[in-house]
């Protein structure tokens, strides 16, 4: 009888010990190891932020603050750009690079201004981002600045094999630079060319680091990760306008809360002729192009 009982309990001491060890290791790795910023507990995030603030302040020689501001309830961000105003002066590109700590060498730019032929209309096969006349606008051309379209149905987040990119509740598509494995699937999926890869070690001159940082936005990036526009999450979650909007000398960019019927964005959607880029792909951008006149 006793002999039979020992035979039915098939778990040996050695098996039990190894399974227990594996479980303990698994627990330790998931609880204490790296965590996706998507699901990181508040207290762990606070520790990480302290660490980043210390590291960045040391590396760039200035006091850096990293914000963990969350999404505001009842807010869905959207941007609109007036195609009849934009004159292609690229001030927004420059302001974006400075605000969002993009690499100067190798060059990474989240905004790309496309020069297009007025006779052909919006035609990506005929778009020229390298125009360099003495003065803009050039006769017969119009300009379409493109950046992340903050799609409501984003192809990029669906293809990420590790879940390093996702949509925040206020509609901003963000990237966890520590979780990104640099496979660039998202870049292949994005129909707007809005995602950019750090082929080399990004360089920011120490004095030029923007010390107003958000943990999902303009943190200095390592080599080998993808980055893109975050609607200046460090500014907009604090209620401010994005940097590209404030610098624009023609006032072509507009920004606000799509859910607020009194917002500038809603005025545009209700009163202006609005165009979406590559609407047929059903990406549902929250970046609208309109004609103000």
């Amino acid at each position, binding site marked *: 009888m006793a002999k039979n009982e020992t035979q039915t309990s098939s778990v040996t001491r050695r098996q039990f010990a190894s399974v227990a060890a594996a479980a303990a290791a698994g627990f330790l790795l998931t609880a204490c190891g790296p965590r996706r910023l998507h699901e990181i507990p508040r207290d762990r995030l606070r520790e990480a932020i302290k660490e980043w603030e210390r590291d960045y302040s040391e590396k760039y020689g200035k006091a850096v603050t990293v914000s963990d501001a969350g999404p505001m309830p009842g807010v869905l961000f959207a941007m609109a750009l007036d195609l009849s105003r934009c004159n292609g002066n*690229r001030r927004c590109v420059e302001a974006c690079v400075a605000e969002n700590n993009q690499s100067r060498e190798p060059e990474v730019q989240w905004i790309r201004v496309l020069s297009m032929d007025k006779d052909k209309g919006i035609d990506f096969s005929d778009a020229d981002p390298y125009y360099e006349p003495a003065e803009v606008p050039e006769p017969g051309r119009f300009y379409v600045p493109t950046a992340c379209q903050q799609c409501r149905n984003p192809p990029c987040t669906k293809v990420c094999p590790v879940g390093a990119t996702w949509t925040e509740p206020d509609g901003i598509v963000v990237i966890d630079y520590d979780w990104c494995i640099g496979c660039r699937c998202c870049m292949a999926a994005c129909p707007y060319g809005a995602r950019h890869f750090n082929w080399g070690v990004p360089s920011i001159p120490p004095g030029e680091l923007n010390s107003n940082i958000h943990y999902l936005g303009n943190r200095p990036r390592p080599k080998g990760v993808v980055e893109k526009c975050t609607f200046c999450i460090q500014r907009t979650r604090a209620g401010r306008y994005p940097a590209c909007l404030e610098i624009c000398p023609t006032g072509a960019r507009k920004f606000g809360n799509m859910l607020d019927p*009194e917002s500038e964005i809603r005025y545009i959607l209700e009163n202006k002729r609005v165009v979406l880029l590559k609407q047929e792909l059903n990406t549902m951008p929250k970046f609208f192009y309109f004609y*103000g006149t």
Partner: protein
Amino acid sequence: MLSCAVAVWAAWLLVRDGGARVADTVRHQSVTASASPPAAAPVQLRVEVPPPPFSEGVFPCSECHNEVDLPSNPTRRQLVDAHDEIVLKHDEEHRWCLDCHDGKNRDQLHLASGEVVPFDESYRVCGQCHGEKYRDWRAGVHGRRIGHWNGAKQYLLCVHCHSPHQPKFKALAPQPAPRRPMRPDR
């Protein structure tokens, strides 16, 4: 039967128009939240703007233009003694200085109605002809804004970007083009 239908239609029209007007008022008030208390007509609400961009030493105009030294001459003419650097390219066939600048209150502008308007409300002068731009500007959709998308923001006067005498937006030198992708060994 017919009169009843007409009455219903008229009532519906009233409700619809009334509703639109209320919505309009609300929009204007939200745009000018930081402005002075609402006036009777919502369209005339004041907007807080930075001071107008006067050229060096021209304001106040009454320093030179006073009744003793320089009485107002309402005859349309080419200016030669002063302000000859101003080239009017703004419907110049039909208008000249005193169509916007007031001939009596020299430090002010005036509307077509004759109402005198200070320089820091010059948008009301512009809005007489450019009504749809004025409407968009009030709604925050025309013109440059700095500040908060959900709070205080700085408006600019029309004349901060468009010279009133030559309002076409000036051409700008663009920032350098992005570098073309290249292999490092080429």
